[in-house]
């Protein structure tokens, strides 16, 4: 008997009324611990597919299975990191991370504090615990959201263009950080982006989408090309450049095909 895949989309379709976001039944299997980037043009349906994993949208048809069981409404196993409004402005950095464990009854208050501190350290914010989000940079706010989701104990991180609002330098810095965090605290990540370099740099695997209605244009195993270890020099290599060009062409053709 075949082993049950960790996370799978099985013949998923989605429409909002007459708007068909995913028309052709969508199938995809994601093994545990894989960092997957959903790459595609704006409005192609990649975010909707990711939100369905989180239970924030439901498939019109088909199902999403987590270890063989269909996912229901949102819960702690699948955490979200948004691009904006990602942390609560009325809570300090530490309180934001603690909020991730607010609804956990299996932890003592002292354990929650210890966990909060651990994840603040992991994202490099141990010195900013008492600060309010308006006093820290946009990049730090995204770190807060990541720490909160990890502290909550989520196995799957669903990230919706989390670095989209940051300037180029900060964005690169956070990409390196996220890659490091993921190797230290292995999680399954679905990372939605329309930035080709970001997708290649971060992910083990890039799913390239066509314009809406969403179909898979390519499923690229990046780790076999670039290796698992990524650092700032990764971007300078020829392999990175070639892969980037190849994907850019795919996206360009996708646009022409739609037009």
């Amino acid at each position, binding site marked *: 008997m075949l082993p049950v895949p960790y996370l799978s989309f099985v013949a998923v379709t989605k429409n909002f009324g007459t708007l068909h976001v995913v028309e052709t039944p969508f199938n995809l299997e994601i093994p545990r611990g894989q960092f997957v980037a959903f790459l595609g043009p704006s409005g192609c349906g990649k975010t909707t597919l990711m939100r369905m994993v*989180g*239970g*924030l949208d439901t498939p019109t048809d088909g199902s999403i299975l987590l270890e063989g069981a269909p996912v229901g*409404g*949102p*819960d*702690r196993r*699948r*955490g*979200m990191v*948004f691009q*904006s*409004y*990602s942390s*609560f*402005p*009325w809570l300090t950095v530490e309180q934001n991370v603690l*909020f*991730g464990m*607010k*609804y*956990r009854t299996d932890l003592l208050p002292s354990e929650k504090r210890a966990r909060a501190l651990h994840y603040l350290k992991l994202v490099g914010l141990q010195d900013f615990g008492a600060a*309010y*989000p*308006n006093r820290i940079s946009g990049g730090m706010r995204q770190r807060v*959201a990541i720490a*909160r*989701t990890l502290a*909550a104990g*989520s196995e799957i991180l*669903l990230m919706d263009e989390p670095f989209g609002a940051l300037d180029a330098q900060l964005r690169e810095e956070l990409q390196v950080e996220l890659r490091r965090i993921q190797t230290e605290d292995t999680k399954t990540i679905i990372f939605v982006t329309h930035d080709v370099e970001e997708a290649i740099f971060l992910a083990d695997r890039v799913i390239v989408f066509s314009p809406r209605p969403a179909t898979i244009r390519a499923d690229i195993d990046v780790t076999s090309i670039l290796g698992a270890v990524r650092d700032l020099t990764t971007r300078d290599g020829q392999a990175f450049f070639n892969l980037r060009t190849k994907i850019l062409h795919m996206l360009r053709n996708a646009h022409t095909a739609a037009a």
Partner: protein
Amino acid sequence: MMGQSVAPLARLFVFRGALSRNVRLAAGCGTALLALAIWSAAPAFGWTNPVFLPSPLDVVEALWIMVTQNGLLTDAGISIARVWGAFLLSAVMAIPIGIMMSSYRIVGSSLEPLIDFIRYLPVPALVPLSIIWFGIGEETKIFLLWLGTFFQLVLLVAEDMKRVPQEYFEIAYTLGAKPRAALTSVALRSMLPSLVDNLRITLGWCWTYLIIAEIVAADNGLGFVIWTARRYMETSQVMAGVFVIGIIGLVSDQAFRLAHRMMFRYL
């Protein structure tokens, strides 16, 4: 070139330019003092008849007499109590109903047309009706103030709730919160700053309607004092009464603003 003008006067009139705090303060005080000076000069030089426009000193004197001999502070206390009574009643009703309107489409769709209709009814036009219903006791005053504020406030609250980012709810859900918990620990907290602001504005409206209510149906309160003074052509007393309302309004507004700053330091 902009902002580099040498002449001091020209520096004050840089289009959309910056101005130091002291200059702004001086400009504000200067205008107020100028207005006061013109007001003082007008009756003194016989430009206006003091019966219609008493001097500032006359008004201060009238205020002093009203406070020490006529129990003006009692009337002010009565008016404040009426305003706060009606204000709290409006708030206690409008906050939960407004939140429900934005939480459940069915509640919003059911209530909105009715509220929108009543909201446009002018309060003074409903004075006769409320006297028929409630006589001229406290009920009429509270009713009129409530009428003027509740229907406005409930829509403002509904709007505050609507503006809570969907992301906040979704973050809470994916952290294990149920809708009710998301409402109390996230949505209420998120909307609180704008809610406090809207309450402050509503409190101001209460004073407008209070004067109407006290003029038509009262034997005490600031509105009654002002209206009575008018009957005897005591213009300085009329102005003193209005002045007291202005001061109370200013103080409560500033108190609200201060509370807002202290409560929401994170903004």
